[in-house]
């Protein structure tokens, strides 16, 4: 069966520090991968998605970037965190066909 792993679960980082959040999927190949940010009262905002290795689409301009170095690995990064980067980040995957997305447990990022 397919599983999605996202880590760390919580993270506290100082302003200006770098960020690296990892997401891996097991049990499937060539998944579509996604990074969402969830904020209270604002739902889930799609940040990045990838349909293949090295292919990244950005939905909103911001201080973050994403990379997909391997088929089932998706990384969310920042060179210098801002206070406004605090939030709950969710990784998700879906198959290429019209199916639902499956979500990881999320990472609570607090920038101090």
């Amino acid at each position: 069966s397919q599983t999605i792993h996202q880590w760390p679960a919580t993270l506290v980082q100082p302003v200006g520090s770098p960020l690296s959040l990892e997401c891996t999927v097991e049990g499937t190949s060539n998944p579509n991968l996604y990074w969402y940010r969830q904020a209270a009262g604002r739902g889930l905002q799609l940040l990045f998605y990838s349909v293949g290795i090295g292919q990244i689409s950005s939905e909103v301009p911001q201080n973050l970037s994403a990379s997909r170095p391997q088929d089932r690995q998706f990384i969310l990064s920042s060179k210098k965190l801002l206070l406004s980067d605090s939030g709950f980040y969710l990784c998700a995957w879906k198959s290429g066909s019209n199916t639902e997305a499956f979500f990881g447990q999320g990472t609570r990022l607090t920038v101090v």
Partner: protein
Amino acid sequence: AQSVSQHNHHVILSEAASLELGCNYSYGGTVNLFWYVQYPGQHLQLLLKYFSGDPLVKGIKGFEAEFIKSKFSFNLRKPSVQWSDTAEYFCAVLNSGYSTLTFGKGTMLLVSP
């Protein structure tokens, strides 16, 4: 781009009350629709989905949703809620090309015992 509107941000009900959460989407073509639920401390999980066929979709835990194309709606219903239904509920639409999901802002449901 498609958009999804959820009418209520917070809903408070007593146990055994009936539930209906509103969801409207903007896309006029063929749509694939979802309701996701996030229980406290848990990850987001699928409640039910509509792709085609019978517009009345039944999901897990007694939930159902009805796709009404003329109203661009996909409202979630449950005849009798339980305390364990306390959670945040998100409506979502699959965008054309089937690559991304657009979510509503969510509805926080609190069921009091």
